[in-house]
């Protein structure tokens, strides 16, 4: 992949390193979650993001910290790549009061406005109309923010997708529809649920700008992301990005995925974006020490985050009556 770089579309070294840093922050977070689940130190429903790290990292690197993100249950890569503090994330995943949402939302409902993570939804497709609303707020206030909403290939078949793309186009909203096409929706292969040959074939029905890229290629992905962000920021309206990727593990941690053809798995392993990215950096002359230092910093942050989460308290039971409405509910 890195071999056939189009010079015109190349990106600078610092950006590439930043994307790598974010990719590894995702990769290691995801890995640690799975390790702890495997060892029984953690018990939760977890949606792995193995294979989709570079995609998120590239997209989020094209955003500012105060740009808005809406993501899904499978959102750890997006959240971490957007810059959410790992200790707050881990504390939320473990249901602690120190978490992003005081433990009340949990993994499927991460919100962290400080890093622009506005909504994480467990309802397929539901994030898209909400992203329009965030983008509308920016359009109206002129705050210059861009909103990115992540969703899967399967989500493109639900009504909310359709309604949201239509509205975004009509109102020229500064929103980017990031379809992470990982070829499966739960256990259902792309073509069983999706009648479009490519997701971007739906864009003309909304007169919408659309692009299909290899989401696992940081340069291709970043450039597409950057172009979409620039368009949105310039008031030129929304873009649909179909980022091709692959979900290397089952739908949820521990779930059977024997329904996936062996060859597909083999091929995906051979094209694992993480080692490829590593190699790309080396090819571009980034020193192995620099890479190691990046990884070490992440490891340290992660160790601290896990420790913090495990050491934190659960929320007090009065929290059941707080944040339901603005006024506390009477006991």
């Amino acid at each position: 992949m890195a071999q056939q770089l189009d010079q015109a579309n190349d990106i600078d070294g610092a950006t590439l390193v930043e994307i790598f840093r974010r990719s590894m922050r995702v990769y290691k977070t995801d890995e640690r979650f799975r390790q702890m689940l495997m060892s029984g130190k953690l018990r939760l429903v977890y949606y792995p993001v193995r294979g989709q790290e570079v995609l998120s990292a590239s997209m989020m690197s094209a955003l500012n910290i105060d740009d808005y993100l809406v993501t899904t249950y499978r959102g750890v890569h997006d959240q971490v790549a957007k810059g959410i503090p790992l200790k707050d994330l881990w504390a939320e995943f473990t249901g602690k009061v120190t978490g992003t949402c005081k433990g009340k939302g949990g993994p499927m409902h991460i919100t962290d406005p400080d890093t622009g993570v506005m909504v994480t939804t467990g309802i397929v497709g539901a994030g898209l109309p909400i992203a329009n609303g965030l983008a509308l707020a920016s359009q109206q206030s002129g705050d210059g923010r861009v909103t990115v909403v992540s969703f899967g290939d399967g989500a493109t078949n639900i009504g909310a997708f359709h309604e949201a793309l239509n509205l975004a186009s009509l109102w020229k909203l500064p929103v980017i529809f990031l379809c992470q096409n990982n070829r499966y929706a739960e256990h259902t292969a792309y073509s069983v649920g999706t009648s479009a040959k490519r997701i971007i074939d739906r864009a003309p029905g909304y007169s919408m700008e659309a692009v299909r890229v290899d989401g696992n290629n940081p340069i291709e992905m970043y450039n597409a992301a950057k172009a979409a962000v620039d368009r949105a920021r310039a008031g030129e309206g929304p873009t649909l990005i179909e980022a091709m990727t692959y979900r290397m593990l089952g739908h949820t941690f521990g779930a059977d995925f024997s329904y996936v053809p062996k060859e597909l798995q083999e091929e995906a392993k051979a094209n694992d974006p993480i080692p490829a990215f590593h190699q790309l950096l080396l090819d571009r002359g980034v020193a192995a020490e620099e890479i190691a230092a990046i990884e070490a910093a992440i490891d340290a942050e992660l160790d601290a985050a896990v420790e913090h989460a495990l050491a934190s308290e659960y929320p007090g039971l009065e929290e059941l009556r707080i944040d339901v409405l603005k006024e506390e509910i009477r006991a």
Partner: protein
Amino acid sequence: MSTTDKISFAQAINQALDEAMGADPKVMVFGEDIADEQGGGVFKATKGLSGKYGTGRVRTTPIAEQAIMGAAVGAAIAGYRPVAEIMFMNFLTVCMDQLVNHAAKLRFMSGGKTWVPLTVRCTTGAGVGFGGQHSDMLEAWFAHVPGMKVVSASNPAEAKGLLLSAIEDDDPTLFIEDIMMYSQQGEAPAPGFKVPLGKARVRREGSDVSVITYGRPVRLMDEMAERLAGEGINVEVIDLRTIAPFDEETVLNSVAKTGRAVIVHEAIKSFGTGAEISSRIHEELFSDLKAPVQRIGSKYSPVPFSPPLEQAFLYSEDEVTTAIKRIMG
């Protein structure tokens, strides 16, 4: 304000929106056909607003209720105060997810980091001949959803006052309008007049029985109380105004005094809001009650088209007076 000024229910809504938009630049309005280019709304509730505040803040949408509600939710968490018009209450069924799984829950699920100061307006009600899919009273569904409020007004002035409060409120509120009442005239309120959420109004004091209701039946109950007074029965009429969470204090104080209660609503009786109110009264005032709390609602049936059936479907004054007389012994 001269108290002889009259306005219609539709005008009251329009005035509330106008005042709210004038007072707070964060108030926006979305809905189908609502801008002036589209005639200012099917019921003219938004007439003139886009002219005055621009089509940036008053947006006609496609027929896409999920898109409307989602845009409202997103704008709300980003600091706006959207008022989303979902034309008919039954159309909430195509965007329940946004309202119930998102608007009502985001404050809690985010641990208070985001909240949704959203007002959803919709109309409904039997009696117009719209039949089964445009007439349902579904307030009980939303009352059962923690994190949101449900409001219904019985006259133009309070409609305005409640809508202003709903828009100012920092939680999502469903504001239910009655299609039969849009042209109903009532006293015009003073500018800025507000009705607090969560507070019922005792419309008439009485010592024999408390009639608890909201929305369209209120006026009928006022009239009925007047008639029954002639027969020596003193009815206390309570307009809940906020259906959920409802004003337990006012309700329980009243029934503690009268010892009898009848709840009246247009929604069908089974599993309706009257069940909760009745249960609360029984739970709290069991030994004070002189008779079991009665509920009058519409019949267990989809709303029929044929005019005589539609009338028979609806609760009636007769049923209420019969119930009152039965429990008066």
